[in-house]
């Protein structure tokens, strides 16, 4: 992690922070079963040049069933001048993950500065399907920024409502245009904005095939004309450009969900210019069945042994979950938990947002879940896949079905509007196992430079 200077606005230089100096960070492509170790060295300045804070970090690989000490536990920090080796198991099914900062108190600022990147996990099933691969499998990391007239980043959390920028970036470029051939493309869309949620659609009015959610391939593709995309969610979408004529421009639009702060051009994301170039016809399909054996989606409501309720509420000027903040967790010596499910148990978690004034993208670490219902009705079509973030809209409640298997220990649950998370809508749960002790989140702390052997 280090400072870097980028040209986002033509002719102006912007100081940002990037993994290996890249904004967004380098994309990982990992085969299932191949364990990885990523050494994160905090080479950031001792003090943020504008916001005056010490930018300690804690890197979270979002979507990974990592051990507690490698999950980016918010208070397991790496100071400037320290490093930490993160071990990732990569045993999970193919999915689009992302890595981003999770350091306590300033996650929003660190991510706004650029500390985010995509991490793609593949498996034999995903590789065997005739869905687009290779050059036709494109990451789209969407974020929003605001700039001063000299090109520097402009920071405002809007009284802790969230960071909302007036410039939409895709893979670090504002409102880019991509040349596309007349075939299917698969876009791995990651909402890496600190606070903004989106509602995608094509200006042609055509459908898109959603083929994967946060935790990988859906059982069957879902064809939608638009869909809502909260912070930190990942959706893999296939768009078929075969029907368009060369020279035609297709615009990916954003009909913003309410309670975002919008600006003149935040209603558009990027454009696709269709070209007549030759292309491969291999992997140019969307099968009617993608992943019928998706384990999380096969869970049954009747399997649940307990139902818990998590209220995402604002109390005394703070964002809380059931009235609990991360400060309460710290005050308890990190012993307080909001839930203690037993390993291999299946539970229903009902998440509620009783407010009409804001929404919360709720993220539960370590596990995947199935969205059982939304406001008492079936899950939305684009949510019919395993997930780890669920959009909790105004006055909405969602019921999630979760199996707490494959690991144990303390993991965070929080709002992924990063400003809400920092102030202080974050708590933790613990997967309990009577026979095998869990690792402590602080059991492998960061070390001071110089680096030891990897």
């Amino acid at each position, binding site marked *: 992690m280090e400072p870097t200077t980028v040209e986002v606005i033509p002719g102006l230089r912007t100081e940002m922070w990037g993994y290996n100096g890249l904004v967004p960070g380098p994309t990982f492509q990992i085969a299932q079963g191949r364990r990885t170790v990523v050494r994160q060295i905090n080479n950031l300045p001792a*003090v943020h040049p504008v*916001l*005056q804070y010490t930018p300690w970090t804690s890197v979270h690989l979002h979507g990974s069933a990592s051990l507690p000490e490698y999950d980016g536990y918010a208070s397991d*920090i790496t100071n400037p*001048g320290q490093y930490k080796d993160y071990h990732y198991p990569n045993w999970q099914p193919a999915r689009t993950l992302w890595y981003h900062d999770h350091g306590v*108190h300033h996650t929003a600022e660190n991510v706004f500065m650029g500390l985010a990147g995509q991490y793609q996990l593949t498996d034999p099933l995903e590789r065997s399907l005739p869905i687009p691969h290779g050059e036709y499998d494109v990451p789209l990391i969407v974020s929003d920024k605001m700039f001063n007239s000299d090109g520097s980043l402009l920071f*405002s959390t809007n009284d802790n409502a969230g960071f909302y920028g007036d410039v939409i970036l895709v893979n670090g470029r504002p409102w880019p245009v991509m040349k596309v051939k007349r075939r299917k493309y698969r876009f791995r869309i990651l909402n890496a904005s600190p606070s903004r949620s989106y509602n995608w659609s094509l200006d042609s009015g055509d459908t898109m095939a959603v083929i994967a959610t946060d935790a990988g391939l859906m059982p069957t593709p879902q064809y939608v004309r638009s869909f809502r995309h909260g912070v930190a969610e990942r959706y893999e979408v296939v768009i078929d450009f075969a029907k368009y004529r060369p020279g035609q421009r297709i615009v990916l639009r954003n009909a913003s969900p309410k309670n975002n702060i919008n600006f003149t051009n935040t209603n558009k994301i990027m454009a696709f210019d269709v070209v007549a170039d030759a292309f491969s016809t291999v992997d140019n399909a969307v099968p009617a069945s993608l992943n019928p054996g998706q384990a999380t989606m096969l869970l049954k409501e009747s399997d649940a042994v307990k139902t818990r309720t998590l209220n995402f509420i604002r109390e005394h000027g703070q964002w809380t979950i059931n009235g609990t903040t991360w400060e309460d967790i*710290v005050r308890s010596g990190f012993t307080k938990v909001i839930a203690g499910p037993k390993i291999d148990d299946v539970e229903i978690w009902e998440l509620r947002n009783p407010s009409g004034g804001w929404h919360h993208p709720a993220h539960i670490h370590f596990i995947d879940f199935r969205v059982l219902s939304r406001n008492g009705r079936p899950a939305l079509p684009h949510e019919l896949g395993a997930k780890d973030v669920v959009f909790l809209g105004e006055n909405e409640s969602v019921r999630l079905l979760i199996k707490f298997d494959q690991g144990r220990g303390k993991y965070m649950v929080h709002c992924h509007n990063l400003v809400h998370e920092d102030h202080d809508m974050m708590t933790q749960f613990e997967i309990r196992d009577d026979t095998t002790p869990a690792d402590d989140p602080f059991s492998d702390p960061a070390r001071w430079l110089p680096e030891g052997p990897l």
Partner: protein
Amino acid sequence: MTDTTSTTWPLATPARRTGRASRTYRALAASAAGVAGVIHALVAPEHFELAWYVGGFFVAVAAGQLALAVALARGAALRTPAVLLAIAANLAIVATYVTSRTTGLPFLPVEEHAGGEHLPVAGGVGNGIPVLPGADIEPVGALDFTCLLAELVLVGVLVAVLPRMVRGTVTSVMLGLGVVAFVARGTGLLA
């Protein structure tokens, strides 16, 4: 000719200030000073939580304004220098208030304004709390805005009862300070 150093309330010439008008001005000024003093006293405890010197400032302001209110209500003789001092002090309080609601006060504890108290972060080096631009700008509330209005009324009445020559000088100085502040704000010196 008016002796500007020893004339007591009413300070203006008898031709301009009748006895009834004088009593009205006194009552208005006493009420305004009383309202401002009570409001400062009410909010002093919460400002002690911010820092001892901030709370102390509010107590001192409250004491001064309440003392002035009592003096005015009792009909005590106020000489021109005392009135000028009261005008200057209340203008300084108004300026401090306006600064706190526009550019922020640089000498206030930063961490408190940035997001409240936090427990220490184990292993953390330095302060991890971001200080966002404008984080030290306080929002305008009903109580503090009422206090501001009371102080402006108080200053207005005190200026109005000054002898003509002194009043002219004081209003010129006030106007000049206002222009300087306006220009400083416009040119970014008071950003």
